[in-house]
């Protein structure tokens, strides 16, 4: 088990490294002189030159990359060009709503998608199966902000159940915070539900054909027990895999959803910083998102071993 985990950890390193190279090169693609950009519009040529030397921009690419990596690893992400606040501090200020929103979305998605996929597999010709599968294709076909506006129009503007936008921080009470994030979380979970429900259905259909499910019936077990002990535990691997893969879509969706609902989280910060060309912030956030994605999928890999004993050896 330890060997397996170490092996997975080890395999994640090159991916993260490749992401870092990618992000680094991305900013080298920027047309124009990065030093001039960082120094700002009103800087004199001397000031630009000073910035260039301070950031080591006059050095060769590889050396710049290495020193940049060194700073990133120490948690030194530099200053925001826009607000002149350290990037790490900016991220710390904005992380709360994004964290809650992501967790809520995953919980909503799993709570809806797994039972729907399960029922769809058990009664392939039933109403639930048809509606779920049609809804799943629809979920892939509608951009997240359209779902968001449809919910805002009906539930916020129409029925006035939820605020149209904005976020109440946890300091004002957990309930207020959760309530302000219900609509964003539902909009964000739409695609995720579609993804997980489809995979759950396919995985359960496959498991139901297995001989050991017949054995479970032959033992006279109640259906409920067969589902929880034999079917779901065997279908778990593809389901958690897709939860991990879908995490990238979730993080991307956070950028859009937070913009739509004016939530002061990391997603909104990302969108704003990109449009303001606030490079240090963009770099740090892309690295952070990619890092979270890699870590989540690492956790998924490790969960495999929990669900499937054959993987451990």
């Amino acid at each position, binding site marked *: 088990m330890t060997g397996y985990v170490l092996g997975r950890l080890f395999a994640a390193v*090159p*991916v*993260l490294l*490749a*992401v870092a*190279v*990618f*992000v680094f090169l*991305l*900013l080298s*693609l*920027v*047309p124009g002189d990065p030093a001039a950009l960082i120094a700002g519009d009103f800087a004199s040529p001397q000031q630009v030159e000073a910035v260039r030397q301070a950031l080591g921009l006059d050095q060769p690419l590889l050396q710049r990359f290495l020193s940049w990596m060194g700073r990133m690893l120490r948690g030194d992400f530099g200053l925001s060009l826009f607000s002149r606040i350290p990037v790490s501090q900016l991220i710390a200020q904005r992380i709360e709503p994004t964290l809650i929103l992501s967790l809520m979305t995953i919980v909503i998605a799993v709570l809806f998608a797994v039972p729907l996929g399960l029922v769809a597999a058990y009664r392939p010709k039933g109403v639930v199966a048809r509606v779920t*599968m049609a809804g*799943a*294709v*629809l979920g*892939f*076909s*509608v*951009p*997240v*902000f*359209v779902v968001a*506006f*449809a919910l*805002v*129009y009906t539930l916020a*503007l129409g029925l006035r159940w939820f605020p149209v936008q904005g976020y109440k921080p946890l300091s004002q009470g957990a309930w207020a915070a959760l309530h302000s994030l219900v609509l964003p979380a539902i909009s964000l979970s739409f695609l995720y539900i579609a993804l997980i429900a*489809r*995979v759950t*259905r*396919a995985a359960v*259909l496959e498991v139901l054909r297995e001989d050991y499910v017949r054995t479970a019936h032959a033992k006279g077990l109640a259906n409920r027990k067969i589902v929880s002990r034999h079917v779901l535990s065997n279908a778990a691997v*593809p389901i958690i*895999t*897709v939860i991990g*893969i879908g995490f*990238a*879509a979730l*993080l*991307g*969706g956070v*950028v*859009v959803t937070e*913009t*739509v609902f004016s939530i002061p989280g990391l997603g909104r910060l*990302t*969108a704003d910083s*990109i*449009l303001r*060309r606030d490079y240090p912030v*963009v770099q740090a*956030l*892309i690295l952070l*998102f*990619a890092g979270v*994605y*890699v870590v989540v999928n690492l956790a998924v890999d490790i969960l495999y071993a929990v669900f499937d004993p054959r993987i451990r050896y």
Partner: protein
Amino acid sequence: MTIITTSDATSSEDGEKRNTSSDRFRRIIAFPLRQPMLAASCGLLFAFSVLALASPWITGDPAALDPLGRLKAPSADQPFGTDQVGRSVLDRALWGTRVSLSVGISVAMVTTMIGVAIGVVAGYFRAIDTIAMRAMDAVMAIPAILLAIALVALIGASPFVIVTAIAVPEIPRMARVVRASVLTLRERAYVEAAITCGGRTTTILRRHILPGAAGPIMVQTTYVFASAMILESILSFLGAGTPPDVPSWGNMMSEGRQFLQIAPWILGFPALMLAATVLAANLMGDALRDMLDPSLQGGELR
């Protein structure tokens, strides 16, 4: 249904020699019956393409302002209503078809070409496999939307950059699909035989590998086409896509959001058009996949 199909297949095999035009005609007529989903989604996409091509002739000027007819609800005169400066939502939505479809098609083509190249190379040449796939993993680790807006915002919005920005995050998935089928095809006896007999690599790839992988590639291309249109609308919506003066669905929705409460049609109609187009593309992909491999019926990982 099954029985009808079977007897149809047998009769056409029997009558191979007298495969007359009327016989072919009958088969074309029967196609929508055998593949209703595929036929319907193809039909819808075809209709949208015709609209896109014909929009300069069938609509008025999408930029024509009408200061007196602002925020008018849908009526017989303006079936989709008018926007905040009195432009016809219908005309603009029809023009928007051009942007979405051309971005979708370009991205699908670019992704397919590059993704297939990477996938074939990674699947066929073991030495390159690990490096190529780790690089693909890295690209997949960055959320597609993030990568696309970053590329567009940093380099600047031009059609070329937009297509590239949307294609880059799609390439790894295409490469993975292709690699997986190349890996299985490589093990097939006829490919082994061709390799053993000293066939040229390019010939083997062209004759044996690519035709075998064509099905999954086609399916994936359809999905890329669909998700490219969604990504384009998101880019426009966030203000990092098609320039605001071009009537694209994303731009229209972005402008319409301020008027959601009083004029939901400004946002609603482009959203419906987008959803219908993307839905048609996704359904086409599903139908193609089920047709190529019925055992996958109803969806696994994409």
